[in-house]
C-alpha cells in the first residue's frame, strides 16, 4: 500500500487530508513542520509527499529543496499545497522540482486524482 506523507501545521487540514488519502487506499503519515517532515522521509520513506508552504519552522520551499538533495527524495513525487495563490510562488515551486502545485482551498476530487496519477506513474 503506497504511503503518503502529509506535511501541514493546520490540524483540521491535516485531518481532512489524512481522511481523503486513507479513503483512497493509501497509508498516511503526518508531520507538523519542516524538520519533522525531513526526519520522516529519512526514517520512514513515503511514496508521495503533500507539502504545505507556510510551516512554523522552515518554508515549504526549503523542505522541497532539501528533499531533492536527499537520496530518498530525489525522485519522490511531491505536491505543493499552499494558501499562497500568487503565480510567482507557483513557478518557484515548480522550478524547485515540485511535481505539482495545488492552491488552497482545493477540490478534494482533483487532489485525489492527482495523487493517484502520480503514484500510478511512480509504481
Amino acid at each position, binding site marked *: 500500500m503506497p504511503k503518503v506523507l502529509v506535511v501541514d501545521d*493546520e490540524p483540521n487540514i491535516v485531518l481532512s487530508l489524512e481522511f481523503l488519502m486513507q479513503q483512497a487506499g493509501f497509508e498516511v503519515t503526518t508531520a507538523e513542520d519542516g524538520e519533522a517532515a525531513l526526519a520522516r522521509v529519512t526514517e520512514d520513506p513515503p511514496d508521495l509527499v503533500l507539502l504545505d508552504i507556510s510551516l512554523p519552522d522552515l518554508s515549504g520551499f526549503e523542505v522541497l529543496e532539501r528533499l531533492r538533495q536527499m537520496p530518498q527524495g530525489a525522485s519522490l513525487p511531491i505536491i505543493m499545497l499552499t494558501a499562497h495563490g500568487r503565480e510567482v510562488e507557483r513557478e518557484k515551486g515548480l522550478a524547485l522540482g515540485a511535481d505539482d502545485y495545488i492552491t488552497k482551498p482545493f477540490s478534494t476530487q482533483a487532489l485525489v486524482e492527482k495523487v493517484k496519477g502520480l503514484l500510478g506513474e511512480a509504481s
Partner: protein
Amino acid sequence: MRNEAVILGAAFGYLALLFVIAAWGDRRASQGRSLIGSPTVYALSIAVYCTAWTFYGSVGRVTTQGASFLLIYLGPTLAMLSAPFILRKMVRIAADQRLTSIADFISARYGKSRMLGALVALIALVGITPYIALQLKAITLSHAVLVSYPNPIELQLAEERFWVDKSFWVALVLAVFIILFGTRHLDASERHEGMVAAIAFESLVKLVAFLAVGVFTVFMLFNGLGDLFAQAGDDPRLRQALDLSAVEGGALGWSGLLLLAFLAFLTLPRQFQVLVVENVDERHLTRASWLFPLYLLAINLFVIPIALAGMLLMEGGDPDSFVLTLPLSAGLEGLPLLVFIGGLSAATGMVIVETIALSTMVSNQLVMPLLLRSPRLGLESRGELRGWLLGIRRVAIVLILLLGYLYHALLGDAYSLVTIGLVSFAAAAQFAPALLLGLYWRGANRRGAIIGLLLGFVAWAYTLLLPGFAQSGWLPSSFIDQGPWGLAWLRPYALLGLEGWDIYTHSLFWSLGLNLAALVGFSLFGRQSRLEQTQAALFTGALRRDAMPASLWQGQTSRGELRDLLTRYLGAKVATRVLEGGRDDQPAPPALIARTERALAGALGSASARVLINSVVRGEALDLEAVLRILDTTSQTLEYNRRLKQKSEELARIGEELRAANERLRELDRLKDEFVAMVSHELRTPLTSIRAFAEILRDGKDLPDAKREQFLEVVVQESQRLSRLIEEILDLARLESGRLTLNPQRLDLAVLARHGLAAVERLQAERGVTLESAIEVEEAWVVGDPDRLAQVIINLLDNAGKFADDDRPRVRLTLSRHKAHYRLAVEDNGPGIAEDERERVFEKFHQIKQQQGGKRRHRPKGSGLGLPISRGIVAHLGGRLWVEPAPTLGGASLIMELPAAPESGEGEEGTGEG
C-alpha cells in the same frame, strides 16, 4: 507784468519735483522694483523727442512753411513702425554688448575703433550744441514773454555782460541740476532709471499743457474748429500759408524733411539714449511702436488751429510765442504759467537726456582714452577710477551747457527755433549710414565709416553751420550770396550749382551722399580687421543668435593661455573640462577658442568673453574700460549665480522631499500588497478545511455518524474562525483609517478585569492553563469603551495562554495603580519574547516564533491580528500597550496602561460596580 517770484518759484518747484521723481525711480531701481518696467513709460520717455522746438516752434513753422512741420513727426512714426527690423536689432546688440551710447555703438560695430568713437562723439558735440542752445533760448524767451507781455521783449545782447543774461543762468542751473540728476552714481550699463521716469513725467506735463492751450484756443477764443477755420478761410494770406506749396523745395523738400526726421530720430544722441540704452525690455518696443506715434499725433493736434488763431488775433506777434501769447492776450494768469511749465518740461527733458548722453560720450570716447594713454597720469595703475569718470562727466556737463549758451549768445538769432533744430538733425543724420548700413551689411568697414563720417560732417558744416555764422554776421554775408572768394559754385546753399532746393534737402543731399559714397566705396575696396569681422558678424546677425560662425577666431594662441584664462575666471575644473586633453604648449584650434569663449560668455557675458578671448588671441592688452565692464558683469553674474544656487538648493530640497514622499508611498503600497496577500492567506486556511470537509461530507454518504459529527464540528469551528478573522480585519481597517467608533465612558477596570477572567476561565481550564490574578486596587476608574477594553483583556489572556509553558501553563493578571495611570499586566510562564521581537509582535500577521524542541502541546494558531488591534484600541483611549519580561512568572508580560479618570464623585456613584 506778472510776478517774477511766482514764475521762478513754479520753475524751481517743478525742477525739484522732477528731481524727487528721479530719486524715487533710482531707489526703486536699486530695490529691484523698477518704476520704468512698462512699455507705456518707455513710449513716454521716447517723447523726449518733442522739445521746446515742438512746443513753441511747430506753431511758428506753420506760419511760414504750412503743414510741413508734420513731416518732422511722420519720420519718427515711420521709424517706430519699422522698430521690429531696425530698433529691435539695435536694442538687442546694445544689450548684448552693453553699449552705452551711439558713439560706443558705432565704434563697436567697426571693430571697437577708438577713432570712430571719438569722431562720433565730436560730431555729436558740435552738431547738438545748437539744439541745446535752442532749448536755452526757448526757456529764456518764454520767461521773458511771460514777464513782460504785452510789452515787446528785450533780450540783452549777451556777449558783453553775460551775467545779466538770463540764458546764462538758466544754463548754469540746468548744469547743476543735471549733475545732481545724471551723475549721482556710475552704472556700467549707463542706465538711468530715475531719469527715464522723470522724462516720462515731463512728456505727460508738456502734452497736457499743449492740449490745454489748444482747447482754450479753439473753444474759448473761437467757437470750435468750424468757426476758426471759417475765419481763417476768409483771410487769403492764411489760405496761402496752409497751402502745401508753402513747403520749401516742393515735393523734394517733403521727402528730404521726412528722411531727415526719420534718420535723426534714430541717431540723435538723446533718442539713442532713451530708445536703446535705457530700454529695459526689448518687448516694450511693441507697444511703444504705436503708442509713441499716437503721442505725436496728440501733441500736434492743435498746432494748426493755434497757428491760425495766432495769425488772426496776434498780428505782428512772434509766431514762436503764440502758444504763450494767446492765453496771455485773453488776460489769463494760470494757463500761461502752465504753458511756461510745459515748455520748460519740453526744454529740460531734451537738455537733461542730451547732456547726459553727450557727457557719457565725451568722457568714454574722448577724454578717458586720452587720459588712459597718458603715461604721466598713470591712470591705468590707479585703483579707483569711478571718481575720475564722474568728475569728467560733471565737467563735461558744465562745458556742454556753456557751449550751448555760447552758441545761443553769439548767433542765437540767426535761425528760428525750427531751423536750429533741423541743423542739429542734419548733423545727427550723418551717423545714419555707418549705423544702419552696419546693421545689415557685413562688408561695411571702419575706414569707410570714418571717411564717410568726416566727409558728411564737413559737408554739413559747410552747407548748414557756416551759413548760420554768416547770417549772424560772424562771416561776411557774401559767403552765402556769392560763395567764398566769390566762387559761385561754392555757395553753401547752392553747392556746385545745385539750386532751388531747400537748405536741408540740399545739405542732406551733399552730406549724406558723400558720407554714403565713401562708406560704400572704401568698404568695397578695403579690408576688415579680424575683430571687425567678428563684430560685423555679431551686429548683422544679432537677431539670429546662433548664426555666428564658430571659427571666426583665426589668431594664434596656445592651450596654456586659454587654460590660464579659464582658470582665472571659471576655476581649474571647468578649464580642464573645456580644454579636454592636449598639451598646454600646443596651438589652440579655432573650434577650441570658440568653445572657450562660449564657456566664458556663459559666466561673464558675451561682450566680456569676447574681449578676454581677444586679449589672448591677438595679444591685445585689455583696456581699463573693458576690465571695469568685466568686473561689473562678473559681480552681476555672481549675484545671479548666488540666486540660482539658492533656487537650485530649494529645488534639491523639494526633490528630496518628493523622493521621501515617494519612498513612503512605495513603502505603503508594498505594505498594502503584503497585507492583502496575508489576509488572503489567512482567509484561505479556514476556507480550505471548510471546503474539504464539506466535500467529504457530500461525497461520503455512508460515513459513520461519529465521523460525520466530528467533521461537521470542524466545519462549524472553522466557519467561526473565518467570521472572527473578517471581524478583526474590519476592526484593523477602521483603526487604521481612524473610523473606529469608540464609546468612551467612565468605567472600573477592576470590574472589567474580573469579567475578562471569568470569560476565559472555562477555555483556559480546558487547555490546562492555571489562571491567577492579583487585583491590587479596589477600584480602577478609567475612561474607555467597555466592550473594546473587554475585547483587549480577553485577547491578552488568550494570547498568554497560548504561549505559557507546555507542562504547567500559568497565566497571571495584575492590576495596579502607577502614578496617574492604571496598569493591567498579563504574564505567562512561557519562554518569553526575545528583545528584538518585542515590538514586532504588534505588527500585523506577525506569528510569534515558537521555541524549538521539547514535546509540544497542541497550540491554536492566532491570526496575528489580535495584538495590533489591541494596541490600536488602547492607543485610541490614550493609553499604551507593550511587552516586558514577566516579573513573577518569568515569561512574557503584556502591559496595558490607561490614564486614571479624573476624580468625579458623581461619576463614581453613577457607574460604580457596573
